[in-house]
C-alpha cells in the first residue's frame, strides 16, 4: 500500500482534483435536486438528512419539460441525420473525388463555422419567418444541421482519408460507381467515424440554446435547454426543480457518450491492409 502510494500517489491526487473539478457541479446538482425546499439554502448539512422526490415529480409530471425533451430528441435526431447524410457526401467528394480546390472548400467550411451565432441570428430569424417556419421544430433542426455541417464535413473527410485509398480504388475497379463505392465500402468501414461525428452533432444540437430560444415561441416547440432556462418564475427561482431538470436533460447525452464510446474504439479496419 505504501509502495503503491509512493508511485501512484501524485497521479491519484491530480486525478481526484480534476474529477472533482469536472463532476463537482454535477454532484452538487444531484444533491440539490433531492433536498426538500426548506433545506435548499441551508448549509450544513452538506449531505441531505431528508431525501425527497418532489422536484422530480414536479419537473417530470407537472411541467412541460417532457414535451420539451421530446422536442429536443426530434430536433437533435433530425439535425444529426441531415448533417451526417449531407456531410458524408460532401466529405466523400473532398476525400476521394478529383475536384479542384479541395483545401479552399475545407477552409471556407471552417470559416463559416467560426461565425458567432449571434451574428447570424437576426437574418436567420427573418429568413425563417419568411419561409413560414418560425416556431417550428423544422426551423431549429435545420439550423442545427447547417451549423454543425462544417464540423461533420471536417471530421468525416479526415476519417474517409484515413481509410486506405486502395479500398476505394479496388471498389471502382470491381465495377462500382463512386456512389456505390461510398455506400458499400467506405461508409461501412467509416462507421466509427460516423458514430463520432453523429455523437458530436447530436450533443451540439441537444445543448444549443440561442437558436432554439430565438426560433421558438411556444411550449410545443421549445427544446429542453430553453425550457429549463425559462423555469424561473417572476419572484422566485425554484432551485430544486432547476437542479432536477438539469440532471434529466444531461442524462441522455451522458448516456449516449458512454454507449458510443465502445463503438468508437472498435477498430473495424483491422486486417484490411497488410498486418
Amino acid at each position, binding site marked *: 500500500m505504501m509502495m503503491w502510494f509512493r508511485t501512484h500517489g501524485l497521479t491519484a491526487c491530480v486525478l481526484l482534483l480534476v474529477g472533482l473539478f469536472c463532476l463537482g457541479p454535477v454532484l452538487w446538482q444531484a444533491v440539490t435536486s433531492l433536498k426538500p425546499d426548506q433545506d435548499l439554502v441551508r448549509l450544513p448539512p452538506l449531505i441531505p438528512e431528508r431525501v425527497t422526490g418532489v422536484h422530480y415529480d414536479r419537473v417530470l409530471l407537472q411541467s412541460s419539460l417532457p414535451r420539451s425533451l421530446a422536442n429536443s430528441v426530434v430536433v437533435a435526431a433530425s439535425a444529426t441525420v441531415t448533417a451526417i447524410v449531407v456531410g458524408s457526401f460532401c466529405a466523400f467528394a473532398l476525400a476521394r473525388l*478529383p475536384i479542384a480546390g479541395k483545401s479552399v472548400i475545407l477552409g471556407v467550411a471552417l470559416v463559416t463555422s467560426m461565425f458567432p451565432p449571434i451574428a447570424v441570428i437576426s437574418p436567420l430569424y427573418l429568413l425563417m419567418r419568411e419561409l413560414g417556419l418560425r416556431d417550428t421544430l423544422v426551423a431549429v433542426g435545420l439550423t442545427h444541421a447547417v451549423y454543425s455541417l462544417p464540423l461533420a464535413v471536417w471530421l468525416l473527410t479526415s476519417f474517409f482519408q484515413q481509410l*486506405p485509398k*486502395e*479500398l476505394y*480504388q*479496388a*471498389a*471502382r*475497379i*470491381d*465495377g*462500382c*460507381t463512386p456512389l*456505390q463505392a461510398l455506400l*458499400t*465500402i467506405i461508409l*461501412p*468501414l467509416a462507421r466509427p467515424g460516423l458514430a463520432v461525428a453523429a455523437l458530436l452533432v447530436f450533443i451540439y444540437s441537444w445543448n444549443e440554446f440561442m437558436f432554439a430560444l430565438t426560433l421558438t415561441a411556444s411550449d410545443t416547440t421549445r427544446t429542453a435547454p430553453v425550457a429549463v432556462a425559462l423555469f424561473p418564475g417572476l419572484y422566485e427561482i425554484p432551485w430544486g426543480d432547476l437542479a432536477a431538470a438539469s440532471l434529466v436533460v444531461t442524462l441522455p447525452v451522458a448516456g449516449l457518450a458512454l454507449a458510443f464510446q465502445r463503438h468508437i474504439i472498435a477498430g*473495424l*479496419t*483491422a*486486417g*484490411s*491492409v*497488410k*498486418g
Partner: protein
Amino acid sequence: MAEVRIEQLEKRIGPKTILPPLTLTVHDGEFFVLVGPSGCGKSTLLSLLAGLDQPTAGRILFDGNDVTDLEPRERDVALVFQSYALYPHMTVRENMAFPLSVVPRAKRLERPRIEEEVQRVAGFLGLSALLDRRPRELSGGQRQRVALGRALIRKPRLFLLDEPLSNLDAQLRASMRAELLRLHKELKVTTIYVTHDQTEAMTLGDRLAALNQGRVQQIGRPHDIYAAPANLFVAGFMGYPPMNLLSARLKNDSIQAGPWHLTKPPEAPTVSQEQTVTVGLRPEDVVVGPANGLDDEGVVCGIVRLTEPSGPTLWVTVELNDLNSEAFTIIGTAQAGFVPKIEDRVEVSALQATLHLFDPMTGLRLGAS
C-alpha cells in the same frame, strides 16, 4: 483478353512530369512484366491503365478501341493491389462475389449463379474452406489468393498486378510465382505485372520492359535482356548479383579493363583507338580462385570482402587495385570447391566469352546487340 496498346501516354501533375511520353504494346494473352526501381513510374502507368488516373496526353487502346476516357468499370480490367485491398467488413465469399454483385441489375447474374462462380474460383485457388472467414483471419498468402480470386471471378479482359508478392515471405513468394504462371497458362488473360524485383521479372515474364524514371530502357524476352542489356541501367539492374562495370580503354585489339588485358571481342564495334568504354562482366564470368603466391603476368590478386553462398554458387566480393592503385570491388564466382574467407588473398580472372561494352557517355550498348 485483349491486346493493349499505349501511345505517347504521358502524366504530369502541374509542372512535374510523373511519366514522360511512353509507347508500348502488350500482345494478346501475354504475361508482360514492368520492372524498375521504385519511383520509376510503373505504378502510375498501372493506375492509368486501370482508369484510376487520367493521363495528361496520349491514348490507351484495348484491341484497337480507345479506352482512355472510360471509367474503370467500363474497361473490364482487374487489378490486384500490393496491399491486397480486401474489404475488411466482408467475408471471403462476399469479397470474391463483390465484382459480380455490383453489376447493374439488368446484367447481374442470379444469386445461385454468383455462388456457383465463387465456389468455382475458390476451388481453383484452394479457398473453399475459408469462404466464411474475414480477411483479418487469413494469412498473407491466403489474402493474396482472395485478392486474385476477386480479380479473376469476372474474367477480365486485362489483368493488372501491382507488386502482388512483395508482402509475402520468400518461400511463399516462390510458390505463388509458380501459381501465377499456372493461372496464366490456364486462363490466358493478358497480364501486366509490375515489380521492382528483377528476379520476379526474369522468372515470370514472357516479355518485360525495364523502366527507369518513366522511360522504357529496354523491352524484350528476359533471356535476351540478360544476354544483351541495352544500356548501363539495364546492365546494372537486371540480374543478381549485378553486373560488374569497369572503366576501360581500347588499345589495338585488346581492352585494358581495370587490371586485365582482355581480347577485343570479334563483334565489338568500330570503336576508335584510345576511346574509353565501360566493360560489363557478369559475376558468373569472373572466377575467383586461391592465390598461388606467384606474381605472374596477367594474374590479378585481391582481398575478399564478402562471401555470399547461393546454392551451388558462392558469390565473392573482392577488393582490387586498378592500375592507378585505386581500390574498387568486383563480384565473382568462387571456383568449384574453393571456399574463401573474408580477408583472404585470392586470384581473380575474367572469362573472355561474354564481354558487354557500353559507351560511358551515353550509357548505350556498343556493337551488335
